[in-house]
């Protein structure tokens, strides 16, 4: 991912657009994630819990997909499956390229400095030692934290920690960035700014985003496509195409209208469980 960001800053791409590696070989319709009839059952027999029931979903390269749903819809389970942290009970799951995962909590290592946290991601993904320092600086600059490398995570605010986590996810050079309610614990103002920041970093569509959230407005603000999951068991209930031109703002009337539409459907889904 960073290579592509770097490429754009070097101006190597003549038209100013940065094509991702995958979109060069298979333009337009290339699929980053393909989930076909995936089910996940925790436990077994009658006590088994159906977290996901025959979920089919795909994301194109460079697409921003938001997954939304009430509690128990298996959103986080789905991300874990895509990240390879867990295996589906049945169904097919195909991911083209590397995945990176961001959580609601930053999950930074508290014994390392900010810079060392990012370096750890580089180290574990096999970046040679001599290249790491420069890349750490680049990554920190990309989330506007160039001066905070020597700080420790606990010295930063929640929003800053999430930006470090974002930089760490970028350090993995992921083709598919999985985000599990990454801004859920932040105050509204910080969250709005991080929406702008994320949209800007993603704006060249060099990576695909699967973004799980509870927040309908956030989904309308960010996504190309919003997927509504029903609960217990988790199933795809509805999909919304979101063509609102970018860059967007959280208070755009079009975004508000979109979130009203999604909310109505979400409420219908929730009411079915009454």
């Amino acid at each position, binding site marked *: 991912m960073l290579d592509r*960001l*770097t490429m*754009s*800053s070097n*101006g190597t791409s003549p038209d*100013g*657009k*940065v094509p991702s590696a995958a979109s060069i070989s298979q333009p337009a319709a290339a699929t980053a994630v393909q989930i076909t009839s995936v089910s996940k059952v925790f436990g077994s027999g009658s006590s088994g819990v159906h977290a996901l029931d025959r979920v089919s979903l795909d994301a194109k390269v460079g697409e921003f997909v938001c997954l939304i749903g009430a509690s128990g819809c298996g959103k986080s389970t789905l991300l874990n499956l895509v*990240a390879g*942290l867990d295996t589906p009970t049945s169904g097919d799951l195909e991911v083209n390229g590397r*995945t*990176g*995962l961001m*959580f609601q*909590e930053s*999950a*930074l*290592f*508290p*014994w*390392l400095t900010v810079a060392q946290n990012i370096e*750890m*991601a580089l180290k*574990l*993904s096999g970046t040679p030692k001599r290249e790491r320092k420069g890349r750490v600086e*680049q990554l920190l*600059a*990309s989330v*506007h*934290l160039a001066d905070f490398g020597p700080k*420790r*995570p*606990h*010295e*930063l*605010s929640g*929003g*800053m920690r999430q*930006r470090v986590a974002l930089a*760490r996810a970028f350090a*993995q050079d992921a083709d598919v960035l999985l985000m599990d309610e990454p801004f859920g614990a932040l105050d509204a*103002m*910080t969250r709005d*700014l991080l929406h*702008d*920041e994320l*949209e*800007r*970093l993603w*704006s*060249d569509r060099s990576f695909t985003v699967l973004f799980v959230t509870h927040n309908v407005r956030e989904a309308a603000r960010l996504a190309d496509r919003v997927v509504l999951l029903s609960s217990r068991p988790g199933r795809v209930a509805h999909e919304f195409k979101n063509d609102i031109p*970018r*860059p967007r*703002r959280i208070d755009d009337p079009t975004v508000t209208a979109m979130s009203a539409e999604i909310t109505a459907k979400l409420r219908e889904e929730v009411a079915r469980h009454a």
Partner: protein
Amino acid sequence: MPETLSGSGAVDTMSAADIDRELAGLDALELAGHERKSLGSRTWSATWPKLIAIGLVIGGWELVSLSNWKSDHILPGPRVVLGQLWTSLTDGTYFHSDVIPATLQRAAIGYLAAVLIGTVVGATLSQIKLLRTGVASLITGLQTMPSVLWYPAALVLFGLNDNAILFVVIIGAAPSVAAGIMSGADQVHPLLLRAGRVLGANKFQLWRQVVFPASMPAVVSGLKQGWAFAWRSLMAGELLGASIGKGGIGGLVDNARTFSDYNNMYAAMTLILIFGVIVDAIFNVAEKNVNRRRGLIDVAGA
């Protein structure tokens, strides 16, 4: 890099510079007022309460001694005892090879062996869940057993020599070290393990880069407690005369009592106390450093 991205025409209403400025403003507001105190002022604020405590103890001792509750012969005042301590320190008595050096050598060998054994046992058990359920309660049992109770067996098994003392020191200290490692490994936040796996760590890297550093606070507590047990076991052994010839500091206490040289007895006890306080202070510094780095200490209080 951000500027070039927006320059590619993707973002125009909210420029990168705007985001940058707003984020910088938020960051500055969030971080205000978290300066750490200087080394000098931290050292001073850690030292003066101790000085006052020492002053109170010596004052109380002086009062008891002045009250003539016991004769000056069997309970000398602090001036006499501290004078004796100073004399023995300066005239080389304590530094004779069978006093402080003998004790320090036993302490170092015994403690290091205990740390080694405790680490291996603790790390192994924390990885093998089945084994640990049973053995963990045995380890707790070992910790509650007063180490001095091991001496009769140790003397029978090893005879009157250093090996008997080392055996008891190890059996006293190793369980604490092992328990620290096990509880440390238990307390690693599952989210950090997930993060490590997401970042691509294999099983060994996960242990080396996540589990081990994450357990450091508990490990250091275990090491500190292990030291306390090692030191008690060692002093008990020397006091019992478990090692003929080289009595160490503990042996000095017993010798002085045998020869009714009570000034020397109290002086040696004071030396043992001072040594304990110093080592404790060193462990406290290590503990605080480990915890502060992880944000486990209130910044203002540290």
